[in-house]
């Protein structure tokens, strides 16, 4: 075996092995056993030793290397647990009724309950509105100055944040939805757009190519 060949089969320095263990433990969703480390690391490595170095390095730090069953994992230091007490949220999809109600409010705000019902064609349950208000995605707007002075609903900052919008006006119009394939491409009898920009025939993006030929 030549010098060069030997070096190809030589294990990396222990400091490098320590880095490897560090990265693997960090990225792994489960605690990792020494055997598993050995399988993953280059031939000739000594994961148990690297692990010992790593464990010592993290002593007293904000996170530590701990043994969990047969495996090893990073865990935050117990004395800092109070900082981790964050609200972890289990996300579940909103119901169809809630999404539709929300969409109508976003596109037509301020919208009254009667308007929402007119557009959806069914009654809006009280729970749906309550849920959206509780989520802080909608709030009460001004009362409509029509008989009965109904309350209106508008979307909130939190709503815009969640959907990555700067304003509700940035929601794509019907025409854009259609061109993105999100809306069936059927002819509209007496189409009512949702605003002047939605159905403005000039609002259509001229495909780049045709522009070459204008002069």
């Amino acid at each position: 075996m030549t010098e060069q060949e030997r070096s190809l089969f030589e294990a990396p320095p222990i400091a490098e092995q320590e880095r490897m263990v560090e990265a693997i433990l960090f990225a792994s969703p489960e605690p990792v056993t020494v055997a598993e480390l050995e399988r993953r690391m280059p031939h000739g490595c000594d994961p148990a030793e690297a692990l010992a170095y790593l464990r010592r390095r993290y002593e007293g730090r904000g996170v530590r290397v701990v043994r969990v069953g047969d495996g090893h994992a990073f865990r935050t230091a117990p004395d800092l647990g109070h900082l981790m007490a964050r609200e972890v949220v289990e996300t579940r999809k909103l119901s169809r009724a809630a999404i539709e109600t929300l969409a109508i409010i976003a596109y037509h705000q301020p919208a009254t309950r009667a308007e929402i019902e007119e557009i959806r064609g069914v009654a809006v349950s009280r729970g749906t509105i309550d849920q959206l208000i509780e989520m802080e995605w909608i709030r009460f707007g001004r009362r409509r100055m029509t008989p009965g002075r109904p309350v209106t609903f508008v979307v909130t900052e939190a709503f815009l944040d969640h959907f990555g919008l700067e304003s509700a006006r940035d929601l794509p119009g019907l025409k854009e939805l259609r061109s993105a394939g999100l809306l069936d491409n059927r002819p509209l009898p007496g189409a009512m757009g949702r605003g002047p920009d939605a159905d403005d025939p000039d609002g259509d993006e001229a495909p780049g190519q045709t522009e070459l030929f204008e002069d």
Partner: protein
Amino acid sequence: MAATGADDWDGMTPERVAERRAAEALIVDVDGFEGPLDLLLTLSRTQKVDLRRISVLQLAEQYLSFVDRAKALRIELAADYLVMAAWLAFLKSRLLLPPDPAEAGPSAEDLAAHLAFQLERLAAMREAAARLMARDQKGRDFFARGAPDDRGVVRHVRWTASLLDLMQAYARIRTKDEFRPFVMDRHHVYTMDEALDRMRGLIGFAGDWTDLASYLPEGWTADPARRRSATAATFAATLELAKRGLVELRQSETFAPISIRRKDP
């Protein structure tokens, strides 16, 4: 295959065969091109010069001969390839002819420079895209924390929806909406029957030529939508009356005001 010899080539000469094969080789690639600009960029590579100093004239010729060959092979080229060909033919002729001082608009050189700019920009974006994809990527080259840290966590159910959900929901409702029975907005629509009734009452007084517009009912002239509706209905009613031989119509030229008068029996 080789044993059957050249006879199988429908009596074509070897030159024709080679020519056709060469052309086909190029055509096979048509599908691989993402539009005329992409094709032009590929052709420009044969010039092996900086895109800024490219010969647009030479490029135009290459493109046109490519399109000609495609046509000779009866390959259907998408319309935008043909539109580009027409424009390049125009540009080529402008580049070859001495400039016409009387002609307004951008010079042939400006147009050629713009095309060179577009090609350079496309090439630059391609390269940028390649560099972007060559970067270390999360989940492939580097990784985020793998294990969720559950300690001290207060679990909450959060209801959520994506922007796509929202847009699709809206699209769904609006689509349904569009298929509701169509109800006319009567408030802003003046019907022909209404117009006929009104005209019948008024026509008796119109012994002389009178502008049709003066027959529009009160309250229907200010708002453009109402005015349009009333004008259309009144005009239709007038035609109906003319058909029945009750009025005569006159218009001095296209778009001039229309006048009517009673037709005496």
